[in-house]
């Protein structure tokens, strides 16, 4: 589904990613772990297409397409979803209306008919239960006045409605209490299938207790220094990043 080859990227001239190689197949869940400033979030943003990140070198192929050639909204319509670490507030823009606009934009892109209001309400009714979100959040402006936990759950709620092929979760666990973490993880797990894939960017192992990854990659200073399965995450938790970095150098 996704193949990243020797990817180098920078922000304002500062090189952040220094040769990432990663292959993600449909049905897989990958976790990218690493210390602060290692480039985890940058990787997520580069895949989503954020303007601030300059790709200096390398290739990214996604479903047979050159991902780097596509604009942000095209990537989204092609099924890439980024759950933001800091979801953005859109004052006055109704949450339901926003989500319906997004879904219809994607359906239009795929040549499908637009969903009408009734169908849409049915669809979100099911999904909102999954994330245990209050109905009242649907009527409020996007993320405005939401608590930190509500914002994160709202991200996963949007993901559940948009049903992406490749979901990128950027520090989705940060700022969540244990109950909210369970709910969010439950939402993500419910969506896992053999046809889609998930990349989880996280600092802590905690989330991976609930969303069990097939692969774990350790990203340090813009490079993946170690890859393994779930056990690697546990090892990281136990030993700390410094130790793993040391071992990888040895």
């Amino acid at each position, binding site marked *: 589904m996704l193949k990243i080859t020797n990817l180098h990227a920078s922000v304002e001239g500062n090189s952040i990613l220094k040769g990432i190689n990663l292959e993600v197949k449909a049905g897989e869940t990958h976790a990218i772990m690493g210390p602060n400033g290692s480039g985890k979030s940058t990787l997520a943003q580069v895949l989503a297409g954020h303007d601030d990140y300059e790709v200096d070198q390398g290739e990214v192929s996604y479903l047979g397409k050159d991902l780097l050639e596509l604009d*942000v909204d095209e990537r*989204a319509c092609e099924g890439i979803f980024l759950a933001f670490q800091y979801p*953005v507030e*859109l004052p*006055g823009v109704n949450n339901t209306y926003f989500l319906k606009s997004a879904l219809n934009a994607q359906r239009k892109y795929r040549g499908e008919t637009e969903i009408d209001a009734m169908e849409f309400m049915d669809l979100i009714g099911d999904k909102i239960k999954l994330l245990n979100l209050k109905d009242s959040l649907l009527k409020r402006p996007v993320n405005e006045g939401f608590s930190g936990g509500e914002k994160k759950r709202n991200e996963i709620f949007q993901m559940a409605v948009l049903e992406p092929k490749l979901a990128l979760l950027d520090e989705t666990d940060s700022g969540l209490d244990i109950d909210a973490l369970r709910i969010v993880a439950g939402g993500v797990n419910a969506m896992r299938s053999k046809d889609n894939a998930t990349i989880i960017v996280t600092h802590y192992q905690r989330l991976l207790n609930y969303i069990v990854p097939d692969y774990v990659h350790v990203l340090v200073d813009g490079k993946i220094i170690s890859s393994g399965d779930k056990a690697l995450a546990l090892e990281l938790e136990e030993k700390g990043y410094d130790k793993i970095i040391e071992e990888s150098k040895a």
Partner: protein
Amino acid sequence: MKQESETEMLKEYAEQEYKYGFVTDIESETLPPGLNEEVIQFISKKKGEPQWLTDWRLKAYKIWLKMEEPHWANVEYPKINYQAISYYSAPKNMKDGPKSLDEVDPELIKTYNKLGIPLEEQEILAGVAVDAVFDSMSVATTFKDRLAEKGVIFCPISEAVKEHPELIKKYLGSVVPQSDNFFAALNSAVFTDGSFCYIPPGTRCPMELSTYFRINEPNTGQFERTLIVAEKGAYVSYLEGCTAPKRDENQLHAAVVELVALDDAEIKYSTVQNWYPGDKDGKGGIYNFVTKRGACRGNSSKITWTQVETGSSITWKYPSCILQGDNSKGEFYSVALSALKQQADTGTKMIHIGKNTKSTIISKGISAQKGQNTYRGQVMIKKSATGARNYSQCDSLLIGDQCGAHTFPYLDVKNTKSHIEHEASTSKIGEDQIYYCKQRGISEEDAINLIVNGFCKEVFKELPMEFAVEAQRLLEVSLEGSVG
């Protein structure tokens, strides 16, 4: 990676075309440019006015001659030569006014169709009575019969002068006197047409009343005059829409609107103004210098101004309320968009005189490209206005880095038992907001529309349904091409 910088986005803005910039080819009778007593007498005679009105105009002209054009507004424009403007233009082949839609010049009907207001269709479907003002003559008035049943008078003001002289004599200039300001004095001297609306006591006007104004002839000013009177316990909702063809010269539009609400009466006045804004260098476009004022003369009366201002190269407009009756209410909801090189200096005046009077001001200014947007508002609480309350909220939204937003709120409080609140904010459409929308699959252009509409929501919800949709579309058209 494909990137669209904000500057590129806004460069595209310039290429946006004024959608309503077509000229209708109709033979018209136009007075040569210039203003003097003879011109005023000519207009008055053309309209078949009684002597008192001719005198009223001449008095206004004499006042105007002594006045100076005001320059306190935060706008810049070259000196206007008032002798270079033609003060009268009327479609020639309908000098006597059409008796029905069949008599209306088909070219005119086509114009209205282009504007999206097919009269025949509206007459049947929309349930909106339209008094269409084409330059200086009112060309078609629909639904008169149904309104007449209820005793509602809705007709061109020139007709009202003849048919209802007692009402005109009583109310004309009673809210905006001839001497009020430079442009009001000019309008009083040369006004050519406009609408008159009278709602009898205890009557709820059975439909939304609507006037479309359009300036067609080059070098003509449009000086329409609108007067709405709601008697005790009456209710009316009035919609005004404006467009003008695209021309290189600037055209002057100096209208006067007067509203009178008696005891327990309510008037809702909604405007969607889309005059030609000029080009990206500020060439051409309408100078929209308008005086709009409502008098809540009766107790518990209410006047609501709602405006969506997207056009004109310069807007100078402060729809105001004089809250004279006890417990009367004034409201002002405004969305003003300045893009290209447009300048808008707009706001309101709320003058609290009666006890327990209330006013609400919600102003949303949007600036894009090289647009300059100024909110200017005055809240005056007179000594007599015990228990008066005002709430003002002025928000500004900036798109790009070459535009400006300015806020000038004036407060003048003479009664200590009153309450005033003012909130203001300025924000920029963030790249992060656009990115967030795009990441969900929404295009850049739709993202901006979404954010702008969200910003304007509090005002749009005050507009009648069909107008709200139109206003939303208009903003979208005005922002069209603003992104790559």
